[in-house]
């Protein structure tokens, strides 16, 4: 019997991952979390076999016990900067594959810095969420050859929990990305882009604010896809969040002091438009396109009312791909090891996706 372990299964992301995995009918679910009552409640609400397990991932023995017997371990617990490669190592040691709805380049590198021998046989998929995740995966669908331009606009209005606010405030610096930068002719162009105010963008409601942020993920993508110029923006429905972040970063004091302001700013955004989240990518083929490549620009729009929940869907799809044997062994981000077309096809049929189009 295939056992799929889901850590953080009672959280916003985890609950959706559990629901989709149960729906796919891939095997028995082992659902772990710190609060056994909440985990048990999730199990009761889940059709098919689901076993609740109390586990604190800071406790190595509990973590080992959770992973033992799992065919694959799916981590939906955070915050990413604390989890890093802890769960991945435990899963691999237990002979399981690993999927992480969060995690980023630092986690991949942490795991690779002292790669466990099991990594030669098993897959460890990080960033199997919306951003990073879909933000690095979906643009690949638009690139049939070299590109003159690739634009990414990702964001909307979403609640930010206190925990996420800490993540947002900490994920800053060149390891994560560079504000106001573009990618041009194979290198980072600092200060190339200005923030956009009150602009209209396909797939976004009304007028929005877009802040240039060349993520490490997008820069890698630009190199891989042979893009002459890549622009990546984080989109907000008002300028409340960027203001709150700027205030926080201008202050040298402890981050915690600014958490409340970031949470409040997100609430203000939600009040303005209601919850929605859009990924918009547009690609312009190079002047000398590849044979058979159209010269017409192409666009991808994916829209959801809840980006956290959608991350759970992405993690579930990634797990399915791993179990189907479609992911090579090794530690990589989801954007670099999943099949973009297959993921997009599955997302298109998911009830959490309100719009999925390529034209």
């Amino acid at each position: 019997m295939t056992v799929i372990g889901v850590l953080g299964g009672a959280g916003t992301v985890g609950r959706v991952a559990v629901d989709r995995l149960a729906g796919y009918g891939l095997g028995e679910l082992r659902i772990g979390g710190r609060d056994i009552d909440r985990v048990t409640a999730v199990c009761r609400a889940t059709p098919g076999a689901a076993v609740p397990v109390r586990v604190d991932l800071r406790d190595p023995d509990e973590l080992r016990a959770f992973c033992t017997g799992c065919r694959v371990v799916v981590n939906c617990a955070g915050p990413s900067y604390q989890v890093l490669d802890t769960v991945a190592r435990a899963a691999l040691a237990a002979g399981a594959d690993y999927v992480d709805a969060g995690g980023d380049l630092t986690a991949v590198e942490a795991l690779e810095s002292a790669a466990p021998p099991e990594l030669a046989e098993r897959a460890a998929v990080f960033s199997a969420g919306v951003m990073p995740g879909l933000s690095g995966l979906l643009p690949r669908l638009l690139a049939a050859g070299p590109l003159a331009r690739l634009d990414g606009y990702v964001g909307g209005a979403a609640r930010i929990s206190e925990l996420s606010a800490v993540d947002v405030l900490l994920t800053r610096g060149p390891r994560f990305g560079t504000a106001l930068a573009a990618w041009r002719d194979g290198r980072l162009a600092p200060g190339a882009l200005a923030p956009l105010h009150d602009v209209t963008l396909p797939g976004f409601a009304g007028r929005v604010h877009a802040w240039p942020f060349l993520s490490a993920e997008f820069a890698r993508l630009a190199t891989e896809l042979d893009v002459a110029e890549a622009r990546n923006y984080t989109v907000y429905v008002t300028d409340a969040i960027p203001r709150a972040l700027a205030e926080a970063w201008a202050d040298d004091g402890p981050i915690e002091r600014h958490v409340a302001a970031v949470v409040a700013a997100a609430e203000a955004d939600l009040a303005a438009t209601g919850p929605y989240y859009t990924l918009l990518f547009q690609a312009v083929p190079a002047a000398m396109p590849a044979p058979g490549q159209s010269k017409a620009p192409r666009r991808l729009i994916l829209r959801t009312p809840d980006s956290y929940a959608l991350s759970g869907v992405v993690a579930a799809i990634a797990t399915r791909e791993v179990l189907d044997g479609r992911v090579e062994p090794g530690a990589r981000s989801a954007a670099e090891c999943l099949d973009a077309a297959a993921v997009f096809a599955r997302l298109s049929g998911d009830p959490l996706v309100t719009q999925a189009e390529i034209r």
Partner: protein
Amino acid sequence: MSLSRGPHDDSSVEGELSRIWGELLDVDPDTIPADASFLRLGGDSVLAVRMSAMVRRRLAVELALSDVTVEITLAQLADAVRRRRTAGNGAHRALPVEIEHRADPSAPFPLMPLQQGYFVGQHDGWELSYESAHFYADFGLTGLDGDEAAEALEDALARLALHQPMLRARITPQGEQYVLAPDAPGAIPRPRVYDLRESTPQEVEAHLLAVRHEMRTTGPNPLHGPGLDVRLSLLPGDRGRLHTGESLLIMDGWSATLLNRELLTLAADWNAVLAPLDVDFGDYVTSLGRLRDSEPYAADRDWWHARLGDVPRPPALPLRADPRDVRASTMETLENHVAADRWAALRDQCASREVTPSAAMLTAFAVVLARWAGHRRMLLNSLQLNRLPLHPDIHRVIGAFATTMLIPVELAQGRTFADLAGEIQRTFTEHAAHNLVSGVEVSRELARRRETTRPVAPVVFQSTLGMDAAIGAQAESAGPLGDLNFDDFHHQLRTPQVALEARFYEMRDELVLVFSLVAELFHTEQVDAAFADLLALVETLADGPGWDRIVDLPAAAAPDPVPGLTLDRLPEHDADHGDGPPVDELEQRICTVWEEILGVPVLDRGAGFFALGGDSLLVVRTLARIAKEVGGAPSVREFLNAPTVAGVAAAVRARLADARP
């Protein structure tokens, strides 16, 4: 790292501020010019917030939000810091805009909003536009010295062009303006003289008709030469005629009056010297540009924008042609005079009712329009010749200062004319109190919100009553040019985007009423009836009883939908070229050009140029770029007919297809 002292003393406020900017913007603090804006050095509004925070921490000075804009320079920031230090946190000082002399008087400066409209109009941009927007006039001269007059006029014009720089102005194809140095070739306009002293009456008449026709239909164009065209016809019997064509791109109606006075003063006396001007039009425009960053400007803009949802449509005048389909070459003029004694009586009536003559005339015009259109609530446009009092010499400067102001009018039923005029005067005053934002800018925003490219306020009111007093009296004699004779004064104004304009001005103690209109649009008998109605109403006001009568007005406030075309409901273009990503290279190139010009992403072929933040001047620049890049571009008018990426691409394709044999 340099050990030398930079331009900013390290201990000073400037020193600390330049270090903060250096950190924020990643530049060497010692190389930051005091007059470069935060924005220019790479700052943005978020960095500005961080800057305020750093100032608070390092200098212990609390800056108000209004102190710091992205356009601020290091020197201005230092001033703000000192002001806050000395004043504490309670001090709020309105940003006064003062005239600053430009370092280089020959440097290009931007067009004023109304100039932009004329500029675009000359590119065939608007419906109801002409090759030139200009004013033409001619008047008689008697007792002229035929041997001296030509030279006196040429000399006077040369001296005046030295005195008034805008007479040497040129407009660039990109829509900027600059003043030529006096010794630059072609800088000084020269009069053209026709000697018909030996001609027969028939020849004279044919000549005058020909000159008049030419100057009415072809105005001076400052894109290619002087914006002023002066001609003198020497006629038999020591008579003559002075013809002037004046481009509205370089001078407004106030300037036209000023030009006549000063030109004739100089012609009358070789030795006459005009009081020197300590300011020029470029200084004024540049100072107004700074005003746009000020809080009073933002407050006025917000005031207008808050009202735009309720702004009515123009009067529902029945039309016999869609303005889009009319290609007029001149505007027709209807004119009548109110005799001097009657005009004096009318002024007395106005004074005793405590309304200005202009407010009374605006009310009379609105009443006539209401009866003509069949409803009482409408949007009128007005031409404003007032200049912001930024400098004591400003009213003596020739330039295109004029601006416009929108006036929403609602005439209540069952009121006397005096009541209505009082109400209109209050409305007018209230709107004029927010005149830092011009009607051109407000109209642009209104059109954007209504998603229309049709004119939003094509019915115009203009009054210069009382203005002559501000300029000074006209001399009756001009030396070798003889005495002025306005008995057979010919004139014509041609302005784009105007369907009907009512003008009220004083001439030789008489009140002159004029309708200027695009005759092709209206039913002739309706225009004649309306003009007669206006004249009759004004006469009853001069008599007195007209003030206390209940004004007969239609019952409807808003127009009832009627079959046929009316000025308030012009059909929009319905050509829908679709949306989605650009479908080919051409559309993508247009997207890229728009992105560079508008500074926003252009990702959709259905994206509208104006919704993206474009304006008509940027249309001209965009078309120049497109022409350069793809070898052909549509006209401004074609662009406005379908101002989306896909629409413009379709127009470019059509243009390129036409160009092929």
